[in-house]
């Protein structure tokens, strides 16, 4: 369980800085899929970096399974939008997965089986000898997923991972991610600015307000069976509600 209570984040000095987060409270239970939704600059990536342990909070507390989060840990794996930057470009697909096993000190004799299993899971078995530069954008994202899953994290933190992909590839990646999530029962915190993406994926959608001093304005539960049909009237209704929420917020700022 991830618990965020009263978290504020100020960049720069305390009295003359930019207040990115103005008091966030959030609980994500084990195995849950939560989306952080909001326009650019609403601090959702900042919150994710705090959950990952990359950034410290200015006030408040973040806990994972009862222990305060102080630094990055392998139980929470961050998943970056730019897979090309996150993967090690001088290693082939299988060597990238092997890197994760190596730093995690998995016994060497188990490597081949684990590498084979996760590359197969993301459909990259045929491309295991290729370097990231030789893979398409979607393949690189799948490789990043395989590398992240190979260390068996309890939480996947995803920062707009599919924003740079074309619509068709993105839909396939959604189905793929949901399938893996349901099989491995990891907790997912997924940042996006795309309302349909949030509705397609999440158990709960946390709508964040525009910065400075962002807060979670509304939590929307999505009780629709997966795979979700976004043309379903209930999904369409949710879309309209959330869109109204976001545009009201944007209008207030303007």
């Amino acid at each position, binding site marked *: 369980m991830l618990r965020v209570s009263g978290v504020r984040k100020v960049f720069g000095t305390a009295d003359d800085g930019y207040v990115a987060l103005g008091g966030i409270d959030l609980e994500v239970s084990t195995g849950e899929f939560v989306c952080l939704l909001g326009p650019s600059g609403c601090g959702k990536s900042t919150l994710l970096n705090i959950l*990952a*342990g*990359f950034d410290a909070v200015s006030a408040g507390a973040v806990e994972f399974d009862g222990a305060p989060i102080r630094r*990055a*840990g*392998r139980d*929470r*794996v*961050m998943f*970056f939008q*730019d897979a*090309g*930057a*996150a*993967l*090690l*470009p*001088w*290693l082939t697909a299988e060597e990238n997965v092997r*890197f*994760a096993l190596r*730093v*995690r*000190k998995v016994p060497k004799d188990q490597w081949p089986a684990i590498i084979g299993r996760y590359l197969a899971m993301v459909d990259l078995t045929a491309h295991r000898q290729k*370097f*990231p*530069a030789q893979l398409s954008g979607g393949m690189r994202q799948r490789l990043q997923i395989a*590398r*992240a899953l190979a*260390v068996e994290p309890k939480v996947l933190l995803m920062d707009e991972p599919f924003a740079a992909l074309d619509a068709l590839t993105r839909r396939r990646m959604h189905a793929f991610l949901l399938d893996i999530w349901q099989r491995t029962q990891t907790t997912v915190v997924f940042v996006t600015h795309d309302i349909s993406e949030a509705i397609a994926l999440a158990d709960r959608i946390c709508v964040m307000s525009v910065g400075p001093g962002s807060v979670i304005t509304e939590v929307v539960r999505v009780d629709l069976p997966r795979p979700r049909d976004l043309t379903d009237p209930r999904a369409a209704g949710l879309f309209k509600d959330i869109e109204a929420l976001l545009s009201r917020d944007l209008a207030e700022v303007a």
Partner: protein
Amino acid sequence: MPPASETVRLKRQGAGSPSLPLAVHLASTWQRFRGLLLFIASIVIGFASWQILSTFIFNPFLIPPPLVVFKTAIPMIQSGEILRDVAISLSRVSVGFIGGSAVAIVLGVMLGRVRLLNELLDPIIELLRYLSPTAMIPIAVIWFGIGEMSKYFLIFWGTFFIVLINTVAGVWRAPVIRQRAAECLGASRLQIFVLVVIPSAAPYIVTGMRIAMASSFMSIIPAEILAADSGIGFLLQNSSMLLQTNRIFVALLTICLLGFIFDRVFRIIVDRMLSRYMSYVALT
């Protein structure tokens, strides 16, 4: 092989046309060897123009034509004289270059990592790097004499700052996302540094070494002209005092050739050993 213009004409007519298999063949041969052929053409044209100019326009004593230079070179090669000078200059460059690169990479990696150390040493480095190896010759001779040590020192000096500055820049520019990704997979700080940061810096380090190699070939000559009794620079100086322009040109050509060959060899070695670290530069 027909002349180049012929090939181009044939290629225009017949590329991809099944009725002209010969033309297609020639066109594809041209495509494959284009770089090499143009390289050879450039050299041939260069030497031919030099020969003509030296024979008909310039004073052949001041600028001896290439055929005379080659004729002068043959006995120098046969007697082993020039090879001895080449060997001694190369050994000076190699020792200084390898030593300078090694020390600079180790120190550069440390400076790239330890901010305080860098802030303390950077001003000194910024001042010292303007002292070219040539400027250091007089003091090097006093410190180390005219033996090998002074030449090792001068090449080391020239190599060190170039490789150092590039290494520090490379370590600094290791992408943050790449390091964070490794961190949350469970990599320790040491692992991130050794397995992520240093390989990320490799292209910068190699670039620095290439520049330093060129500068080493440039610095060895003045060092040997001013303070040596052997080596290519000494051959230049000695021939100049005896007004042997032919031998000066042999020495000059040798310098061109050596620098060129060494850069190619260096690139081939890098391609063989480090290509996977070099090829990704365009990716991120």
